């Protein structure tokens, strides 16, 4: 999805001379075109994430619109205090692009993969959080990042080969990918690919009608949309993030406000609260965490068979 990001960035940078891209020495084979088009607006601060956030804050305080880029855990966890004190607290126009997220960096290990970034960042007030699951979703959230002048974060993993949308996303309503009245599933980020494939397969094999909704923006939460979208008594959330403070928590707290005269049964499929330091491919890591297509299908079938 970083190529979607770079292309959009180039488009917007042609119109807005205040846009700067800062990297801590990452983005090889991605930022060359931007650097060539806007040599003065591309800053490689070197391998120094802390200074990157400081420089970004200082430049944004002087009226610039800043995009900072690094591998997700480096920019988020190493610089968390600076994101909190310098950027979020002062409401500066700094947009943090974290490459990877979840098990995107597969065999590279726990230093590169993340299970807790969304939970940690969601606790920061005034920071918008995006987690797109496809190219079109990435375009959709980037549009809001270019439009707003507030602190933002985006988790940009690898884009799936296919897109799940038939047309450009212009409105949250477009995020309802499939319709159905057996089960409502909310998901976020690039695990969407597996969820989509599981849903499609179950429709074909078992005839289940599942409503699948993707939520590429996790803050601010659109509770109204979430509540309005629920049209079944069973609701499932699926995410490649820890079970504390992620999508499951968002749906659970939205359900408290569900006022329709109907009982809702809610389950959440997320990463367990353990140290995720196993080595393996993205598929392997998803499999041992029950996020592969087969396991998602099993969980859906079990949930649908449960009687309340």
């Amino acid at each position, binding site marked *: 999805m970083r190529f979607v990001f770079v292309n959009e960035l180039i488009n917007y940078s042609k119109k807005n001379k205040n846009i700067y891209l800062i990297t801590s020495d990452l983005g090889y084979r991605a930022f060359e075109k931007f650097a060539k088009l806007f040599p*003065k607006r591309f*800053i490689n*601060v*070197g391998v*120094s994430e*802390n*200074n990157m*956030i*400081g*420089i*970004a*804050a*200082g*430049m*944004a*305080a*002087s*009226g*610039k619109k800043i995009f900072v880029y690094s591998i997700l855990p480096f920019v988020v966890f190493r610089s968390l*205090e*600076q994101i909190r*004190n*310098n950027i979020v*607290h*002062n409401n500066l126009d700094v947009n943090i692009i974290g490459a990877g997220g979840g098990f995107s960096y597969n065999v590279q290990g726990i230093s590169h993969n993340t299970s807790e970034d969304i939970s940690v960042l969601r606790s920061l007030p005034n920071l918008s959080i995006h987690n797109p699951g496809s190219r079109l979703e990435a375009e959709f959230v980037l549009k809001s990042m270019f439009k707003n002048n507030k602190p933002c974060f985006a988790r940009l993993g690898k884009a799936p080969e296919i897109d799940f949308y038939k047309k450009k996303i212009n409105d949250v309503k477009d995020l309802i990918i499939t319709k159905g009245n057996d089960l409502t599933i909310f998901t976020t980020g690039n695990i969407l690919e597996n969820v989509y494939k599981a849903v499609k397969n179950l429709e074909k094999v078992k005839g289940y009608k599942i409503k699948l909704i993707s939520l590429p923006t996790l803050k601010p939460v659109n509770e109204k949309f979430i509540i309005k979208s629920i049209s079944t008594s069973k609701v499932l959330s699926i995410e490649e993030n820890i079970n504390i403070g992620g999508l499951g928590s968002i749906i659970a707290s939205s359900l408290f406000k569900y006022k329709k005269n109907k009982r809702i049964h809610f389950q959440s499929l997320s990463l367990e609260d353990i140290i995720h330091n196993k080595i393996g491919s993205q598929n392997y890591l998803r499999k041992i965490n029950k996020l592969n297509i087969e396991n998602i299908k099993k969980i859906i079938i079990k949930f649908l068979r449960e009687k309340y």
Partner: protein
Amino acid sequence: MKKKNKLLDKINFIAKDLKKKILDISFKKKAHHIGSCLSCIDLLCALYFGFMKIDKKRIYKNDKFIMSKGHAALSYYLVLMKHKFFSEKFLMNEYLTDNGKLGGHPDMNMKLGIDFSSGSLGNGISVAAGMAYAFKEDKKNNKVFALIGDGECNEGIVWETALFAGHHKLENLFVIIDYNKLQGFGSTDKILNLEPLKSKFESFNWNVIQTDGHDISKILRSLTQLNNKKNRPNLLIANTTKGKGVKFMENKFESHYEVLNEKKYNLSIKNLN
């Protein structure tokens, strides 16, 4: 020459007045960090009344200042007060009070003249370099100043920024180290030796001058000399004394934490005079 002396007299007069106010207000508000405030007040007065461009009516033309050693906030608030960003009454009402605007560490507030927040050490120099970079990009003449502590130089980000500013030749960046040689738990040479500090920064491609941080005339002369050199970021290593002017506080790292009781307050005022 006469004009220069007049300016020096004026700044010295203000500095003396503000030193007394540091003691008064710290006593009344039971504030810590008195030693830190006395260590850097001469530097702040030299900057704000003798060197920086500050015009409340044309803020966009102003030089920027970051009080990176945020724990000495009171001395910073006092120079802003002298610049009439707010009144002394406002300071007394807002400083360290419930729902006050002036906390133990400064929070960014353009109306009050506070250009950026601080409190967590090491960040100020980096943010200042970002501001300087933006001004340079926009071909503006504004300068950016950051006052940092010597203990603060333990932080890795200080050296990340030192590399960055040297590499990008940020000649509009002025960093001042309040070098009182005492930090949280004792003396800098025993905890994490900074020496040779001057040549360290020089080797990072900075212009560096080391001078007496309590002699307003020397501070101003050094800043002017730095300003005349081009193509490099500027560092003023200001040799200072923690608790300067109050004998029983001088060179005592305890003055970082101690709150004045009435007896000590009276003694400190007598000391100062």
